[in-house]
């Protein structure tokens, strides 16, 4: 029973934080909401006994990415005025689309079977469809206590994931160099050599 309560607390933190990210007008508060949401996801990872991923989530996301985003919000402070409208003209359509997607996903995920009513509108005829009735598995065996060792070995094992691992490290290096290069202040235009104007 305790586990369920903890699950609902972390779910609430995650989803309310996420709502804060998309609704807050003040971008700085939105970034702080993002941090809360990321901590909630870390809690969900912990609840699923993926302790290493929970720790990574706190380090990489809440510690790295969220701080990076807050820095950028600070750097672009002048144009992120909370008084300007933060949504574009298609916000209502986007909300409708997101709700529709959530509804469809909920229909698919619902464990009991659902039968949609038969629709008959002249030419448009939709038969009744039975969805759901999925035998969702319950949590079975405990996680191997040596799971972290196995994970670490698999990441550097030639039979495992060593090539994707190395490619990911190259990707991070390229992203780092590219990020520094793109964000570097523009150099001043080189001083014109004497005599260049005359030739021009």
């Amino acid at each position, binding site marked *: 029973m305790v586990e369920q309560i903890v699950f609902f607390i972390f779910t609430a933190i995650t989803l309310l934080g996420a709502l804060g*990210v998309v609704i807050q007008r003040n971008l700085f508060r939105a970034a702080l909401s993002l941090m809360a949401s990321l901590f909630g996801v870390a809690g969900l990872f912990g609840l699923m006994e993926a302790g290493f991923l929970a720790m990574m989530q706190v380090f990489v996301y809440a510690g790295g990415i969220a701080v990076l985003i807050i820095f950028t919000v600070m750097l672009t402070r002048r144009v992120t005025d909370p008084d300007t409208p933060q949504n574009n003209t298609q916000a209502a359509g986007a909300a409708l689309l997101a709700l529709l997607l959530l509804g469809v996903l909920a229909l698919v995920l619902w464990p009991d079977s659902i039968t949609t009513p038969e629709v008959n509108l002249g030419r448009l005829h939709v038969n009744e469809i039975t969805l759901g009735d*999925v035998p969702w598995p319950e949590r079975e065996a405990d996680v191997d206590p040596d799971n972290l060792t196995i994970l670490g070995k698999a990441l550097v094992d030639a039979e495992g994931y060593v090539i994707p691992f190395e490619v990911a490290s190259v990707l991070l290096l390229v992203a780092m160099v590219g990020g520094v290069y793109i964000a570097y202040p523009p150099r001043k235009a080189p001083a014109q050599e004497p005599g260049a104007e005359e030739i021009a």
Partner: protein
Amino acid sequence: MNISLWWYLFVAAALFCIGLYGALARRNAIAILMSIELMLNAVNINLVAFWRYLEPGKVAGQVFAIFVFAVAAAETAVGLALIISVYRNRQLVDVEQMDSLKF
């Protein structure tokens, strides 16, 4: 009543939909990047939940989640660098006005 797999999947679906709304409706490029982070997190919850409930003896689910972390970090670094560069050159972060490649 145990926590079933579909509870986690539903949380992930809700998180993904919130992120989708944010990515489509926001005007600020930083807010769009944050919404994309939410969507990537939803994917990670799904990966870890399937790992825990279906194949807890293997490592594939966790490895995939770790690669999603790496790609998300790279994406954020480059995305924020682009935003800072655009801001420095044109003093804007509104994606509606970032249209100099369009014409």
